[in-house]
C-alpha cells in the first residue's frame, strides 16, 4: 500500500511554523498537537450507533448502486464511496445543519446520505428519473441540495475548491457564522486552482475547511507517482494554513478532528487543511482495470481497517446487543431496497424538461 493511514512518524521540526509566523503566536502544528493529545471523540452509545447506521447506509446504498449499474439501470460514470464512509459521516456530524455548507466532487453519494438526504431521490437521480434530486438531468456526479446547504456534485477535478472558498466568502460577507467544508481528492490536490484558493482563503481569513480525502489513488495513479509532497496536510504551510493529519478510517477520530478544525475556523482564525487518510475499495468508477494495486492490498484494508467493522467492534465492546445491530442492518437493507425500487419504477423526465432550467429566465 502506498501509505499507511495510521499516524506517521515525522520530524517534529519539519512543519513548525512558529519562527516565521510573526508575533501572532500562530503555530501551524497547534491543531495537530491538539488532536494528538486526544485522538477520539467521546461519543455516547447512541451517537456511535447513529454513526454506524449512517456508514452502513452509505455502504449498502453504494453496493446497490453498483448492482444497478451492472444491470444497466445507471449509466455513465458512477464513483462509489465504499471504504471512505467514516470521512463524510464523522465530518458532517459536527456541522450545524442548514448553516454550514458543503461542496465536493463527483464521488458525492456518501456526502449526501451523511447529510440525511433521502436515499430515494439520490438513487432516482442515478437512474436518471424525474423524481431524482436533479430531475434526472445531473446524474451521479451532479447532485445538489440547497435545502441542506449541499452545493454539489462537481465533475471537474479541483473546481470545488475555489467554489468552496466562494461559499465561505459568502458566509463571512453575510456574517452568518457558517463554515464551508470543501472536499477534494489526493489527485485534485495537484490542481493549480487549489493553491490560488489557499492563498486567498488565508489572506482573507475565510471560514473554510479544506478536506483532502486521501484515498491513496487518483484513478490508477498512486499518490507517490503524482505528488512531490505526499503529506497533504502540510501543503497549506506556505500559506500559513494549519494542517491536520487524520485517520479517515476511524469515525471517532474524524469527528474529533472536525471539532478541532471547526473551533479554529469559527474563532475567526481562517482556514484549516485536513488530510483524511482513507481507502477506496472499489474501482475509480465502474470500469477500472484494477491493475495498479494488488488484490491483497485491498483485502488487507478491508480486513484490518474497515471503518464500519471498527465501529461495530467498538459497539459490541461497549456491550451493545448484537441483535440491535442486526436490526439496524435489516432496516437499512430495507431502506436501500426501497430506494432502488423507487428509482427503477419512477418515470423518466418528461421530454419537455429538455429545455427547462437552462436559464432561470428564458431565451
Amino acid at each position, binding site marked *: 500500500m502506498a501509505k499507511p493511514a495510521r499516524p506517521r512518524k515525522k520530524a517534529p521540526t519539519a512543519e513548525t511554523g512558529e519562527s516565521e509566523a510573526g508575533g501572532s503566536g500562530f503555530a501551524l502544528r497547534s491543531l495537530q498537537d491538539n488532536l494528538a493529545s486526544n485522538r477520539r471523540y467521546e461519543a455516547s452509545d447512541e451517537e456511535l450507533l447513529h454513526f454506524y447506521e449512517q456508514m452502513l447506509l452509505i455502504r449498502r446504498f453504494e*453496493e*446497490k448502486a*453498483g*448492482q444497478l*449499474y*451492472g*444491470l*444497466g*439501470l*445507471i*449509466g*455513465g*460514470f458512477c464513483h462509489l464511496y465504499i471504504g471512505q464512509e467514516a470521512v463524510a459521516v464523522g465530518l458532517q456530524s459536527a456541522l450545524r445543519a442548514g448553516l454550514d455548507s458543503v461542496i465536493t466532487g463527483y464521488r458525492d453519494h456518501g456526502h449526501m446520505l451523511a447529510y440525511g438526504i433521502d436515499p430515494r431521490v439520490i438513487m432516482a437521480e442515478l437512474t*436518471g*428519473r424525474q423524481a431524482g434530486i436533479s*430531475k*434526472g*438531468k*445531473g*446524474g*451521479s*456526479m*451532479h447532485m445538489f441540495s440547497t435545502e441542506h446547504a449541499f452545493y454539489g456534485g462537481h*465533475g*471537474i*477535478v*479541483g473546481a470545488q475548491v475555489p467554489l468552496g472558498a466562494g461559499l465561505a466568502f459568502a458566509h463571512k460577507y453575510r456574517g452568518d457564522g457558517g463554515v464551508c467544508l470543501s472536499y477534494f481528492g489526493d*489527485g*485534485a490536490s*495537484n*490542481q*493549480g486552482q487549489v493553491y490560488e484558493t489557499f492563498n486567498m482563503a488565508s489572506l482573507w481569513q475565510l471560514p473554510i475547511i479544506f478536506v483532502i480525502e486521501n484515498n491513496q489513488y*487518483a*484513478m*490508477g*495513479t498512486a499518490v507517490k*507517482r*503524482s505528488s512531490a509532497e505526499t503529506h497533504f496536510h502540510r501543503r497549506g504551510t506556505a500559506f500559513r494554513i494549519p494542517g491536520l493529519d487524520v485517520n479517515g478510517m476511524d469515525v471517532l477520530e474524524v469527528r474529533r478532528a472536525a471539532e478541532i478544525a471547526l473551533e479554529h475556523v469559527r474563532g475567526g482564525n481562517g482556514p484549516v487543511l485536513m488530510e483524511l487518510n482513507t481507502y477506496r475499495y*472499489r*474501482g475509480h468508477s465502474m*470500469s*477500472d*482495470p*484494477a*491493475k*495498479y494495486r494488488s*488484490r491483497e492490498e485491498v483485502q488487507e484494508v478491508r480486513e484490518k481497517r474497515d471503518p464500519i467493522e471498527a465501529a461495530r467492534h467498538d459497539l459490541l465492546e461497549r456491550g451493545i446487543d448484537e441483535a440491535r445491530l442486526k436490526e439496524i442492518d*435489516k432496516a437499512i437493507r430495507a431502506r*436501500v*431496497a426501497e430506494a*432502488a*425500487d423507487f428509482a*427503477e*419504477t419512477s418515470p*423518466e*423526465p418528461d*421530454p419537455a*424538461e*429538455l429545455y427547462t432550467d437552462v436559464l432561470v429566465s428564458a*431565451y
Partner: protein
Amino acid sequence: MAIELKMPALSPTMEEGTLAKWLVKEGDEVRSGDILAEIETDKATMEFEAVDEGTITSLVIPAGTEGVKVGAVIATLDGDGAAASPAPAARVEPAPQPAPATPAPRGEDAAPVLRSDPSVPEGAAMAVLTVREALRDAMAEEMRSDSRVFVMGEEVAEYQGAYKVTQGLLEEFGPQRVIDTPITEYGFAGLGTGAAMGGLRPIVEFMTFNFAMQAIDHIVNSAAKTNYMSGGQMRCPVVFRGPNGAAARVGAQHSQNYAPWYASVPGLVVIAPYDSADAKGLLKAAIRSEDPVVFLENELVYGRSFPVPDIADWVLPIGKARVVRQGADVTIVSYSIGVGMALEAAETLAGEGIDAEVLDLRTLRPLDRAAVLESLARTNRLIVAEEAWPQCSIASEVIAICMEDGFDLLDAPVLRVCDADVPLPYAANLEKLALLNPARIVEAARKVCYR
C-alpha cells in the same frame, strides 16, 4: 433463495464482453466484495465483485466465453436469506426504459461506405484497424522516427491511457518519452507548449477535451499566438489531442464539443477525423506540423474498425475534406462522429430515392472551402450535421461559406442539424433527444429537397 448473477456493464459503452476467468467455483461461499470473475472488454480487463452473500450454485457461462451480452445470466447464487438483497433475482423482465447501458447505437451500425481517399496509392493493401489502434500506431511511428516526439498526459503511461489510446507506448518508448502527469492540465499544457518552444515535439493528451478548458489559456494564448507575436521567430509544434464531444450518459460537464471554440482561433490547426485511415494519416501529419494542432477524437468512435492503407508512411494532407459518399441530390457536410450518422442517413435517403453526398471536413481549421463549394455545385442543396450546439458552430461557418461564395449555386436554404441548445442532460431519454441522430439528418435532407 436463488439469485442470478448477470453479466455486468462495466463501462458506459459496454454491450458485451469476454468472461475471461472465474475466480470462484461452484460450492464456494462468497461475501460482498469478493472478486468473482475477470471480465474483458476491448478496453480493459475488469474485476466483477459480489454484491450478495451466499453460495455459488452454478457457473452458467464457462471461463473463456467471448461475446457475453450485458445482462446475460452468468452464474447463480444461493443467497443466505436475510442478508441477501432480492432485487436482481426478482427482476426478470427488462427494465421499463431502454436499458441505458446499451445505448442506441447512434450511427454505429452505419455501413462504412468508404470511397478510396484520393491519396491512397493504387493497389495498396488495406489493414483493418480500430480508430484507437490507428491513433496509437500514428504516435508510435512518429516516435520511432523522431526522437523529439514524446507523449504526456494523465494516465497515459502505466494505465495505458484512460481510453487505452496510448496502449503499449510506455513499454516501447519508456518513461522518459511516455509520461504520466499529475492532474494539472493548466500546468502540463503550459509545460508541453514550452517544451515545443524549446525544440521538442510534445503530444499532450487530455483525458477528454472537457478538461482542456483548464488549460485553454495555454492553447490559445501561449501556443496559438506565439509564432505571430514573434514575427515568425518562435515556433510551437505541439499537438493537443484527446476525446472530444459527448460520450454516453456522462452528463453536462463531460460532454461538450469544443471544435467550434478551437476552430475560431487563428494560429491553431484543428483536426477532427472520423475513421481509422484519417485518424492515422492526420495524426502523423499533426505531429510533423510546425504549428500547434488541436486534434479532436471521439470516445464512441475509438472502438470502430475501418480499413487503413497498409503502407510504410501513411500521412495525409492537413486541410483537405473528403467525399466519403458520392451523391447528386444533396450534400451532407459533417465531421467526426457525425460522419457515421450522415452515412447512415444517406442509406435511408437512398431508399427514398434521394441520392445524398457525404462530405467529411476532417480538418476544421483551415476549413476546406473549395471542397464544400465543389460539392454544393454538384448537388445545389446542402445541410450540415454536427454533434455540437448550433450557435456559433462549425455548421454556422459552413453556412457562411455557402452564403458568401455559393449563393448562386443554392436551390434551397442551407440547414443545420445540431444538438439541442442545452447542457447535455443525464437521463437516457433526454440525452437521446438532445443529441444529433440519423433520423434528424434525414428529415433535414428531405426538407431541402422539398420532399
